[in-house]
């Protein structure tokens, strides 16, 4: 029987396994050295904060794997030999495969900072990182201050985690405003304030120069490049992005760049070897997407796609419209379609922006300057209906249409204050238009779905 081996039991690998199992009876083995069972990596923060137990981050009950005849193997793959279709493990044991799926995810970036491997320096990615953090920073007595280097999503999550235990946090961000490589200034500035309001010592335009230690190799302080200021700390979190976790492929003949190079069918240059998720790198960018996307749902979608191909139904990886979401402390963020920051704005792209005078609510809508086509939306503090925006993007609706029907796209809980009237009024004032907001309509909300049924 064909043996499919999947290295990595994250969302990509597990989704692939589930979908292969749905369609075939092939033998499936998932290999992982991190934890025997699939868990939600993004939920690790909640374990430290005490919202969840680790077991609750696992979406499937333990019996699920047996029931679906998916073998779980604990082990760390050190080498892949495509010629003999053999994996070698750390303990020198081996495993042969007929089809291999590489889904090993990422690892935290380290940029060669002096002291980056000291005791007390960690990323926030693996389960082992969580365990280490629990050990190093259980309370403000043991960890008098933590410094976080790198202002992305993981950085702010790590800051939130440490603050939940009242540990003072200094947050070094290379950019002049938080995440402004991705977010428009309006939103980035709102987040700067919000971060400060959570008593996080946010240092913008600050790079790490070096990490210093005591005679036992434990972190004692860091030095900031720009100012030379030395900040005493016990823990340093490196959260300056992630990079594909593929060192073990060296010498295997599987072509890599930053990640494992794959074509649109997620196949590598070696027959019967596929790569999906964070560690896969598209040879050519798909639409405006990056070649490597370390996002939960793209991993899931690649798993769904590769499963089709492996089950004999050759399928291209074709991610639909871009979307994403995150939570910055207390502020929820969603995005549908493309909204680029001022720094990366396309020449044809224009913004319409609205911000609540007091609350942490704002939106940015990107549209085509000339055609007024709706390109994308960022919402902060307002939830939106994915399906509606996906449909409107496909239909290439105008920003006028989107604003007119904004009520039907709102996804906030019932009774929440809604701001569509203020938003549309602002647009009308700015553009001398007379858009009249349409009532929320069930027919409109479910239109697409009803047709397909």
């Amino acid at each position, binding site marked *: 029987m064909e043996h499919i081996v999947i290295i990595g039991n994250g969302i990509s690998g597990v989704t692939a396994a589930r979908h292969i199992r749905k369609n075939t009876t092939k033998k499936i083995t998932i290999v992982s050295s991190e934890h025997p069972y699939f868990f939600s990596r993004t939920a690790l923060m909640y374990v430290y*904060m005490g*919202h969840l137990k680790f077991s609750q981050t696992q979406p499937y009950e333990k019996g699920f794997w047996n029931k679906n005849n998916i073998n779980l193997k604990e082990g760390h793959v050190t080498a892949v030999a495509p010629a003999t279709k053999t994996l070698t493990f750390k303990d020198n044991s081996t495993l042969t495969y007929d089809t291999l799926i590489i889904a090993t995810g990422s690892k935290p970036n380290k940029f060669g900072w002096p002291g980056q491997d000291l005791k007390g320096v960690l990323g926030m990615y693996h389960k082992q990182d969580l365990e280490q953090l629990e050990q190093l920073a259980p309370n403000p007595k043991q960890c008098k201050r933590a410094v976080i280097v790198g202002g992305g999503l993981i950085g702010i999550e790590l800051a939130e985690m440490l603050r939940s235990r009242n540990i003072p946090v200094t947050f070094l961000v290379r950019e002049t405003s938080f995440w402004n490589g991705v977010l428009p200034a309006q939103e980035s500035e709102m987040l700067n304030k919000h971060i400060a309001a959570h008593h996080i010592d946010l240092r913008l335009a600050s790079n790490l120069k070096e990490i210093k230690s005591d005679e036992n190799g434990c972190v004692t302080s860091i030095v900031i490049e720009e100012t030379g200021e030395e900040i005493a700390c016990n823990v340093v979190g490196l959260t300056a992005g992630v990079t594909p976790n593929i060192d073990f492929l060296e010498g295997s003949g599987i072509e890599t760049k930053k990640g494992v190079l794959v074509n649109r069918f997620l196949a590598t240059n070696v027959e019967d070897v596929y790569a999906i998720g964070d560690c896969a790198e598209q040879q050519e960018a798909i639409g405006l997407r990056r070649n490597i996307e370390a996002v939960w*749902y793209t991993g*899931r979608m690649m798993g*769904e796609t590769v499963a*089709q191909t492996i089950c004999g139904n050759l399928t291209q990886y*074709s991610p639909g419209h871009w979307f994403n979401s995150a*939570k910055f402390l207390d502020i929820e963020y969603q995005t549908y379609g493309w909204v680029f920051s001022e720094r990366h704005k396309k020449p044809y792209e224009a913004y319409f922006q609205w911000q609540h005078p007091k609350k942490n609510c704002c939106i940015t809508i990107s549209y085509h300057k000339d055609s007024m086509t709706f390109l994308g939306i960022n919402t902060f503090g307002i939830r939106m209906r994915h399906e509606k925006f996906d449909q409107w993007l496909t239909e290439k609706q105008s920003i006028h249409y989107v604003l007119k029907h904004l009520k039907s796209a709102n996804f906030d809980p019932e009774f929440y204050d809604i701001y569509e009237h203020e938003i549309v009024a602002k647009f009308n004032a700015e553009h001398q238009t007379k858009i009249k907001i349409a009532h929320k309509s069930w027919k409109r909300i479910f239109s697409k779905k009803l047709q397909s049924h």
Partner: protein
Amino acid sequence: MKRTQQLGLLLFLSALTLFTASVFTGNFTFTQQEFDSFVEEKGYKSELFVEELEKALVTDENINIFEFSKRVRNAVAINNQYYNELIAKYNAEKNWAKKGAQYQYKINGKPHSISFQIAKKSGSGFTKEHPGLSWWLTFGLGIFGALLYILPSSVLLGKPGIKNNHIYRDSATNRGFIAWLVLVYLVVFYLVLYFKADYVVNWTFILDPISASLNGGPASQWFVYGFLYCSVMLTMGVRMYIKYRHNKYQMIRTTSVLFFQIVFAFLIPEIMTSLNLPGYDFKNVFPLDYDFFFEWNLKRLTESGGIGLFILVWGIVLTVIIVPVMVYFFGKRWYCSWVCGCGGLAETLGDPYRQHSDKSLNAWKLERWLIHSVLVFSLGMTVVTLYCYFSGTSSLLGIKSQWIKDTYSFLIGSWFAGVIGTGFYPIFGNRVWCRFGCPLAAYLGLVQRFKSRFRITTNGGQCISCGNCSTYCEQGIDVRAYAQKGENIVRASCVGCGICSAVCPRGVLKLENGPEAGRINPTEILLGNNVDLMQLVNKKVK
């Protein structure tokens, strides 16, 4: 702030200690004069019983409620044994006339209830003489202390938002030592309340003046329970208001459960009683209100004229028409997490424990068996009761009406709904009764599952499977299992509390009422992958 909280906790615990200690205070003897007038008032026919009671209770020593209860029950036992023997004797002699004459001398009723009634008369002591001061030292101080503990969290919790920090690191909310202590206290409380109410007669003295002002009579143990229930819900409601102050759905819902509990379940029935009308909770729906069709209630209602008849019709219309129609439009949440008293306590006092509901498939299986069995049990009991009521017999198909009512009241009404349902909050979560036992919830659940506009819509592909929704679902629904598949949640047990939606960090869940078409939407591939792939897979499924 922290200091204030500590002080609040200290005051609350002091009040709880005083409240508990008050049980052991007081003297329950009669003076000769009191005893004589009590006996005259009661008109006991059995001289033996009066003699035994006098021996036991007219004394110079001080006896507390436990000794008192023992003596009264002993007097009842001696009396009843004596007459039972006489009855047996005359029975053997076939002396029917004499046998029949003995029954009037027996003391009927549950021994602890008899003890309660007498204790209510004979009791003296601090709580009886100083009910006002006692109230302030127990209820007053308790509420004040609890509020001192709760109010600072509006600052200490930080900015408005989901604040579940340390829930799994705290002994009280992570099934630790404190949780078990709370469990023991609650279980003992319910056992005493249901089965040994005389032991806590002192509590009723504290509330006698309030009871008198509301319904014109002295406080029963049920009045104490009702008053305590409202106080606890109000106080813990304040906690809800602070914790979910960013969430209007939760604010309005909390207001709703508080309103229905205080006005409908507590005040209106008390005021009706004071007006000599049958006290009735207009929102208590059969079969949760399992004794609605009991003979005593039907008798009471049919004998109360217009209002009685109205209640009878209202009760039936509520169950048969209003409830299912409302569930069709809004889901069972309109009742279970907006109106119901059990739900109200679960959503206030029980909120800190919501994460303990079991999410396993086995628990779900157990839930379906258990809750539907209770529904069948309650309906079967009602059929027997009504049959006997209208036919004038005492049993149907060999099932005795009295036996099945007593069994249901004991097993379901007292043990399941009370002792386990609430007592086990700190370990099994706050909706044990609502999920596994409530026959009304079973009925509403069937309507919600098969004929309703309510669903929890999932938001395409945004789910990151973090598990917050499942963890904080008080009904033990594995919400994530649906959300990560992009499947709407349409489950019989969902009470629509809205917490899954509140705790979701990615805005994936929305409770809403919409068209029935497409409400249940199993999806093979989530939104995100391109349309071709979706169509391909959908084709395959078809």
